[in-house]
Every structure is written in C-alpha cells, then in structure tokens.
C-alpha cells in the first residue's frame, strides 16, 4: 500500500544540507501494522510528516527518494493535491490530542470538514456521517458530542475525535505518530485496542510511530528500528523481539522495564543520540556501540539480509539464536 524508497529529508541550505532522515526505505502491506520505533530526535516524526506531505514550510524538505501510495508517486504532493489527483488515501493522527483540534470550532464541524472533502457530502448528510464516525470510534452520546468544543472533552476522547477525523478521509493507510504518549495508561490501552480493531475491520494499513517497545510488542506486525535518521533493523515483531541482530535494537530491549522486573536500576545505553549532521562517516551508532570496531567509524555499515524480511544495518551483527 505504502512504499518508501531512500527517503532523505534535510534541513539547512542546499549548499550544506544536514540530513535528519537519510535513505529510509520501508513497505507496508494491506492491513499490516508497521511499527517505527526510536528515541526522540531519531527522525521518526520527520519521516511520518514527509510521508504525509506535511513537512513544515519553511523548514525541512525532501532531498531525495520516492514515496508511493497505492502505486502512485506522491513524493512532493501535499494532502490536498493528493485528494485532487485521486491518489490513494492516507490520513494521520498526532501526538498531542490537546492541541491538535481547533479550539474555537465544534467537533462536528471539524469532522464534517473532512467528510465534505472525501465523500463529497454536504450539510446534514456530512453531519450524519460525522455521527457515524464518532460511533465507530466509540464515543458515547455521539449526537451530543458533535456540537461540543474540544476543551469540553478529555484527552482520550480528543484522540478518538482525531481518529474519527482520520477515518473521515477513508484512509487505506493511517499514520499514527505517538498517538498514546500523552495519555494515561488505561486510556492508552483502549486507544491501541481501537486502532487494532479498526485495522482489522476496515482492512487499513497503519504506520505506527512510537518510542515505546512495549506498545510495539502489543500492536505491530512488523517493526523498523530507527536511529540517527536511518532504519537500522527491520523484522517481523516476533523475530525482532526474539532475535535482535543490531546492537541498538538489543540495547532498546534491555531497557524495557518488563524485562527487568526486580532490578534495582534499569540498564541504559551509554551516551546520547547524535545531533543531526554530527556523524558524517561510518556507522551512526558506533560511538555508543559496545561492539564497535575501528572500521565501524570509517566505513558505512552494510545492510545485511538476515532472513525473511529481516535486515540489519551493521558490520558485526549479534549472533542469531542468542537468547536476549
């Protein structure tokens, strides 16, 4: 459904660009959930905004690569241009449900606005459809909430509204950028359940972006691990958790609280994530990698194919089958 090839997003001048996303490639099949995981600042949000055609202007721009949505090249198109051209449909929900809705317009208006664009409905018909959507995301008293303003709703409800707005676009692909980070844990579980359910019922693909390995384990079919603007490892969820091959992935796993029950201190990965543009040669993870050799700092690491859909960007990957 969605295919991203060698996507490079840069900031700075054309003469001296600084890549914040470099050479990112991934595919998402129909009805599949791909988890894109990484620390903050690793470029995952920029990747999602680039895919959506929503990079802030002026600011970062796509310097190379290709984004294909249901077979059509949409690399340089903004959402409205994609609608106009009749390409595949894609929608997005964001991290901050508190600020992502217009505070001075009613919920119904904000959903109906998307309905009008994508279904060509107007007036009462658009509102009826908006009510259906609210029911779909399990908002109680849907008819009543249509005329509410965002500040009258809780964070979880607002995120459901955001999902309803996304569904109004009848998306084949949904991008969810840390949609549960700002929410309480119980609400988080409900929203994840809702997304899983919608994915199954509507046969929708999801690109799910998070820093939380626990969320990935619950929701994703496949995982791409991102570090320093690059995807360092891709695998299906069972393989990745069972046999991580990249040292960074392994590090992330070791940091998961659930694997360290009873431990006095959680393990951490030494060092800090690199600022964009500071590492120009060799492997981006080398400065923090326990297994780094001299060659890691000078030569770009190879992308190793390690099995069915399993790749790692590493010259000295961990052994397969090693218990983690």
């Amino acid at each position, binding site marked *: 459904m969605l295919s991203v090839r060698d996507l490079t997003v840069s900031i700075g001048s054309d003469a001296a660009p600084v890549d914040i996303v470099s050479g990112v490639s991934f595919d998402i099949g129909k009805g599949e959930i791909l988890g894109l995981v990484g620390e903050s600042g690793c470029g995952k949000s920029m990747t999602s905004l680039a895919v*959506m055609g*929503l990079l*802030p202007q*002026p600011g970062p721009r796509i310097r190379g690569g290709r984004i294909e949505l249901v077979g059509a090249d949409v690399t340089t198109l*903004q*959402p*409205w241009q*994609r*609608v106009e051209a009749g390409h595949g449909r894609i*929608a*997005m929900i*964001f991290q*901050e449900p508190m*600020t*992502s*809705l*217009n*505070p*001075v*317009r009613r919920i119904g208006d*904000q959903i109906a*606005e*998307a309905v009008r*664009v*994508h279904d060509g409905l107007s007036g009462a018909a658009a509102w009826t459809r908006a009510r259906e959507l609210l029911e779909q995301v399990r908002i109680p008293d849907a008819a009543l909430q249509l005329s509410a*303003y965002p*500040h*009258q709703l809780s964070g979880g409800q607002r995120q459901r509204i*955001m999902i309803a*707005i*996304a569904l*109004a*676009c009848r998306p084949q692909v949904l991008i969810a950028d840390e949609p549960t980070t700002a929410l309480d844990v119980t609400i988080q579980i409900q929203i994840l359940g809702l997304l899983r359910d919608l994915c199954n019922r509507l046969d929708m693909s999801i690109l799910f972006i998070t820093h939380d390995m626990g969320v990935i384990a619950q929701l994703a079919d496949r995982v791409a691990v991102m570090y320093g603007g690059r995807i360092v490892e891709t695998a299906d969820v069972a393989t990745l958790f069972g046999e991580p091959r990249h040292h960074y992935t392994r590090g992330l796993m070791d940091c998961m609280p659930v694997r360290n029950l009873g431990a006095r201190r959680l393990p951490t990965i030494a060092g800090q994530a690199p600022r964009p543009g500071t590492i120009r040669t060799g492997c981006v993870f080398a400065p923090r990698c326990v297994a780094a050799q001299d060659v890691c700092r000078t030569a770009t690491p190879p992308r190793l194919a390690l099995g069915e859909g399993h790749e790692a960007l590493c010259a000295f990957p961990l052994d397969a089958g090693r218990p983690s």
Partner: protein
Amino acid sequence: MWSYALKRAGATLVTLWAASVIIFAFIHLIPGDPIYVLLGDTATPDQIDRLRHELGLDEPIVVQYLQWAGHALRGDLGQSIFFQAPVTRVIADGAETSILLATMTMVWVVLIGVPIGTIAAVRHGTWLDQGLSGVAMFFASVPTFWVGLYLILIFAATLGWLPSSGYPSIFEGGSGNLRYLLLPSLTLAAPNAALILRLTRASMLDVSREDYVRTARAKGIRPWQVVRRHILRNALLTVVSAFGFTFAALMSEAVVTETVFALPGIGRLVVQSILRRDYPVIQGIILVIVVLYLFINLIVDLAYRFLDPRVELQ
C-alpha cells in the same frame, strides 16, 4: 459568562468614577482662580462673587464634585463660555461629523488592514510580504497630518477631485456630502490600518504554527480553506481585542485630522476650545470620550470572550 460580564461592567464603572475625579480636578488644576479664568480679567468683584456662588465654588470641594457629577449624570456638562450655550449642545453639534468620520475610518481600517495582513501572512517571507510589511511600518511611522496634507495637495489642490476642507451635514446636503469625509477618513485610517495589518499578519503567523492547522492540512482541504476556516478565524480573535486600542488611537488622531481638514467635529472643537480658553467644553469632551472609550473597551472585551468558546467553562 454573565457573572463575568457583570464583574467587568462593575470594574468599568469604578474606573469611570476615578477618571471622573481626574476630569473634575482638571479645571481646578488650571493655574489661577477658575472664576478669573471663566470671566476674564475685566470682571467686577460683584460679578465674581455672584458667579462663585452660582457655580457652587464657595462650597467644600467634595460637595462641588458631587454636584458636578450629579449634573453630568443628568446630561448637564455646564455652560460653554465662548458659545454661551450648554456644553452638551456644543458637543452634540460636532458629534455628527466625528461619528461619521470614525465610522468611515473603521470601515477603511477593516477593509484594508485585515485582507492585506492576510495576504502578507500567507505569502510570509516573500518579497510581497516584505513590501507590504514595509509599507505598513511606513504608515505607522508617519504623522497623521502629514498624510492629510499630502492627500489635500494631490487630490484637492492639484487634481481637484475632492474638497479639501469643511463638511456640510448630510442631513442638509444629502449623502453626497460624504465625499467631504473621504480624504479625512483615509488620513485617519492610514496609521490604524497599518497597525491592524501588522497585527493580523503577526497573529496569523502565530496561529499557522499551531498543531490544529496541521490537522486541517492533513484532512486534505485546500490551502486557502485552511487559511480561511482555521488560521484567519482564530487570528481575528486577537485582532478584535485590539479594536479598543485602535479606537483610542483614532480619537487622538481625529483631533489633528479634523484640524487639518477644518471639519466641524469634536476633535477640532477641543483644539479651538483650548485656544479660546473655553475650559468647560474641554472638560466635557474629555469626559464624553473617556466614557465612550471605556464602553467600547467593555464591549470589545465581552465580544472577544463571547467569540471564544473556551471561556465558557472558566
């Protein structure tokens, strides 16, 4: 909402009371005995005593204030020395010109300031934006009367298209007389439209960085619709709240503009009354304008809160 409105109205009344004390004190602060000021140097002691008693100036100052305030509440602002007529009448004679001038000016301010500010914001960072913002800053830096004199030089003296001074009432000469107010209203609009333009642009740029604007874009609606339905609408809330300030600026600049164009309005009346030492008229006009200004600020503030649904819960 209603309790807020009441509270706000109460605060306005308190401010008005304090302002009225200052305005009352005004005549007493003018150097010299107000009686000499009112009667001039040629008055006889007899006349002086009589007027002092008539005006209640032999009473304690608090009693004088209460009498003055009581009269003012009943619409009696005293007698004009120059016109030998009630101040209220004198002000009412100038009101038509000033109200029409202010209205026309506000129309220009909104018609020029908001759309051009929007264009500058939408084309943010381009040469068009820089040009428009530069022009706006130019007009914010220009003395009002200079613009007025140039408009007279070009459109009245050189081209002869429009009258350069005076204003015969529309009630006598028909609405065609509004052309007398065209140049004055443009003069008065120039700095204020510039202010609203800059404010519209700045608050639109602020709003366009909000997350909900990104949500609107993600829906796939056209850029212009995003601007109209999400950015402009929210930005105008800020602009509306600046209209009280604009009114005050307009009142100040009207004094000069009416003088330049010799309009028979309240603004020129102030200046003439200062030169004629007609203090009751100055006092009356200041009181009327302060009341108007406080009232407009109250309305603007309530309108702002009415337009913003978030306030409901607070």
